[in-house]
């Protein structure tokens, strides 16, 4: 049988999914054990014992100076920034995308602007954000908003244009004005697409968050990682990275479930 026609069985699929993770883990453990055997003070590849001790210290023991549980404090701060940034970007991107994609008179000035803005590398204007918005929460949230909004707006504009013109005509013969046409036809059709776009930009959002936290912050997951880098504390960095990955995956999964739940008619909800 040709390779293209062969697919794994149910159990086989699961085994194949676990395989690369297991291999990576085994590779890590072997190298870590090897290095620690040569030099018990080696910091590059800490053992699981060392890492869980670090997690224990940060997550389940109050900090000596502030009395906070740093791990959870960092998580809460980061998620708050990320959530605020994504929410603002989603609303702004949706408004811009719908306006540019549905109303030609709005699209004429907006489309070129959005296209050019989406080309500006957000990290390059991070210093400007710090100058304009200060070093507080606002500039970090703004970095996410500025980085994500043009991408969302462009995608949603494109999707709005892809709505068959027949449907727009039909809605008008059913008595819709421009506003109700957007409300009852365009927005419902774009909402599932917004959730899918959010899943796609999630990686960039985390990137901007961690970059902003690394440069100017006093808490947050990104801040902690860059802080302990000075002591080469891989036993802290690695669990943090794993935790960020888990959070990102969980958000992706939740958005997917939400799409399926809210928009059962949408084909993208199935994949």
């Amino acid at each position, binding site marked *: 049988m040709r390779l293209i026609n062969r697919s794994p069985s149910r159990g086989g699929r699961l085994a194949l999914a676990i395989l690369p993770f297991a291999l990576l883990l085994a590779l890590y453990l072997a190298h870590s054990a090897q290095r620690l055997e040569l030099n018990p003070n080696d910091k590059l590849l800490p053992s699981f014992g060392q890492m869980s001790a670090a997690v224990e210290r940060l997550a389940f023991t109050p900090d000596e100076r502030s009395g906070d549980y740093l791990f959870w404090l960092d998580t809460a701060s980061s998620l708050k920034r990320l959530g605020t940034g994504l929410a603002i970007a989603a609303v702004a991107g949706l408004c811009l995308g719908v306006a540019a994609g549905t109303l030609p008179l709005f699209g004429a000035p907006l489309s070129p602007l959005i296209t050019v803005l989406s080309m500006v590398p957000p990290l390059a204007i991070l210093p400007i954000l710090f100058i304009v918005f200060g070093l507080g929460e606002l500039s970090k949230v703004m970095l996410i908003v500025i980085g994500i909004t043009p991408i969302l707006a462009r995608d949603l504009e494109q999707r709005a244009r892809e709505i*068959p013109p*027949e*449907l727009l*005509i*039909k*809605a*008008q*013969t*059913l*008595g*819709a*004005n421009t*506003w*109700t046409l957007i*409300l*009852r*036809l365009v927005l*419902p*059709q774009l909402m599932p697409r917004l959730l899918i776009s959010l899943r796609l930009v999630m990686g960039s959002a985390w990137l901007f968050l961690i970059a902003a936290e690394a440069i100017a912050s006093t808490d947050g997951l990104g801040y902690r990682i860059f802080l302990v880098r000075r002591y080469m504390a891989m036993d802290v960095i690695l669990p943090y990275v794993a935790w960020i990955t888990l959070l990102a995956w969980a958000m992706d999964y939740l958005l997917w479930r939400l799409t399926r739940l809210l*928009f*059962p*008619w*949408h*084909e993208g909800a199935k994949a």
Partner: protein
Amino acid sequence: MSDKKGGTGAFIQVKNVWKQYGDQVVLERLNMNIAEGEFCTLVGASGCGKSTFLRLLLGQEAPSRGEILLDGQPLAAEPDVSRGVVFQRYSVFPHLSVLDNVALGLELPRAPFLGRLLGRSKRDAREQATQMLHKVGLDHALDKYPAQLSGGMQQRLAIAQALIMKPRVLLLDEPFGALDPGIRKDMHALLLELWRETRLTVFMVTHDLSEGFSLGSRVLVFDKPRIDPHAPGAYGARVTYDISLHDGHRTPVAADSLPADLAGPFQTAYQGA
């Protein structure tokens, strides 16, 4: 072309209408009067401008020259509730259930800000929509989404959705083009029944000549009478045959009983459509 039906007071008057895109003339010198309650079927070779004519009637596009009058008034320049439409595809809203697809037409005109009705008036609208869906035989599928319906059921839904607005004119662009022959027969019966009941004016584009002759009370044949081989876009299509069928005469006509020059182009192209 012909003035057989009605004089200057005709329901729809098409006066010397031209339509061109750039230098491509699609339709030229269309003149006709359509009486209220007429069922016009539009036939003609592919690309000769039948859908374009329908778009003009719908107000989706404006004629390049000439004008179309509805009840003596120039046609509204954009689609509105006076003219319903059913396309071959994309006629129903995929994100709304069958019931909501039909109720939408009752909600939109009455709720210019929210776009939806609430409470009692919403229940009334859904009640009315349910009755309309009963008429087209979809009462067992009220809560389904269009993607869960067969092609024929989707077109039934589209027809119900258009008729709930009580339009004066119904425009159909190859509404049954994608359906298999058995289903198409049912749809013909349904459409004729609804037309007799409402007496609305129907324009229906079809590629199936016998469909055109069995359904219509009037058949408009679009064709290009002149063709310049060096400039294919120089001349547009006109209505070359305008055939009025009396009620008694409305029986399926085989393509071979038509004038030879008329039947020729269809037989090859459309028998399988």
